[in-house]
């Protein structure tokens, strides 16, 4: 059985002390140890941003995509070998600005992929510009007079687009975050886990203490099968009013289950057909 140490890489970590990425990193590695996610059964894909460096710090097969494009890469990997656990690490800028379109259509497709949305409500790597998750009025280098846009609601968007597992956790709550990553991976279908994480250097609004004081756990009174109730919960945001937990879970046929060509075998297990195209080339000469 692997240990946390087995997942260690020699790379020097570049995250700021206290960064929420540490919580996500640790929770993921703990989950990997519990569930035996290893190089034979798991692939991780990351986008561009501080979160994207996670690829360098977890010793698993990984791919760092273009900005906003980790979901299409993950989608291709899953299509080629649907037996793999496929995880996407993406930031709020990466996933909701550059990659917003991919999130919507991947949700519709319901591939069995887990998206871990590192949400620090800012572009941290480029030193603190306003992102699609920054609050209205938020002042930053890119919006010195205050953000005139409303923040995007990624969970409402994911539910509306068809994601079948939608949840939110705080990065400093390691036991619940670890448990949630396992749960999201076990879910058959497209899972979106929004992780509220502070950018301790550039976002002074959403700090660790802000989340610790203002989140509350969704309890059993919340019916996770009820889409309307889930939507209502995604609209809550404010002082002592930030729900965390599973918002919505539905059992729907996945993309892989509906694709007849990969019903019996994964694509990578099928032989590559060699075709003679000389006749075709001659035809066009």
């Amino acid at each position: 059985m692997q240990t946390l140490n087995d997942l260690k890489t020699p790379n020097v970590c570049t995250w700021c002390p206290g960064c929420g990425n540490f919580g996500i990193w640790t929770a993921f590695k703990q989950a990997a140890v519990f569930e035996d996610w290893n190089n034979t059964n798991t692939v991780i894909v990351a986008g561009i941003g501080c979160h994207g460096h996670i690829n360098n710090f977890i010793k698993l097969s990984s791919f760092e995509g273009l900005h906003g494009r980790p979901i299409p890469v993950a989608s291709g990997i899953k299509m080629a070998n649907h037996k793999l656990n496929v995880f996407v690490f993406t930031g709020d800028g990466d996933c909701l600005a550059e990659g917003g379109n991919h999130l919507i259509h991947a949700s519709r497709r319901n591939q069995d992929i887990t998206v871990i949305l590192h949400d620090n409500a800012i572009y941290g790597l480029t030193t603190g510009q306003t992102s699609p998750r920054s609050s209205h009025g938020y002042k930053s280098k890119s919006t010195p007079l205050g953000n005139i846009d409303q923040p995007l609601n990624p969970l409402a968007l994911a539910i509306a687009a068809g994601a079948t597992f939608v949840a939110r956790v705080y990065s400093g709550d390691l036991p619940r975050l670890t448990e949630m990553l396992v749960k999201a991976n076990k879910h058959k279908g497209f899972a979106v886990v929004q992780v509220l994480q502070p950018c301790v250097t550039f976002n002074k609004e959403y700090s660790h203490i802000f989340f610790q004081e203002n989140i509350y756990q969704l309890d059993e009174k919340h019916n996770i099968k009820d889409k309307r109730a889930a939507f209502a919960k995604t609209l809550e945001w404010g002082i002592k009013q930030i729900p965390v937990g599973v918002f919505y879970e539905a059992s729907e046929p996945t993309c892989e289950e509906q694709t007849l060509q990969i019903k019996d075998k994964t694509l990578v297990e099928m032989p590559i057909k060699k075709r003679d195209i000389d006749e075709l080339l001659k035809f066009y000469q």
Partner: protein
Amino acid sequence: MLKILLIYATNSGSTYVAGKIIKEALNHDFAMTMQNASETNPNDADNFDIIILGSPTWDFGGKDGMPHEMMLELLNKWQNKSFAGKRFAIFGCGDRMFVQFCAAVDYIEKFIANVGGTLLLPSLRLNNFFFELEKETELAKEWAGELKKMLK
């Protein structure tokens, strides 16, 4: 069987993981409960024989070298409570590059002395936990082993 309550506070998870290693090392011999400081009722301490406190060191209210906010909040609630005869052990995660390395541990040690508690053994100060994982895990296990010996 002695009942031990391990209370941790964490931002990045290192203190939590270190706490888990300590808990696992003590699990067979003691009735262990581990909980987050933010989810701890001040009276929870009454139901346990020994309390282990773990905190990172951060800036708080513009002052460097302080315990995690949630640990501070718990300590503030304990301010007027008597802990005479209560046995404590303390650990913390920090970075030796920082002049206030594990200053939160010093802060908590002073607090325990002020409320009449007894420190069972020298506190554990872990350095650069995630990046020295192997070495620091061993240190945490050794420390838990020392604690076990003292209580046996």
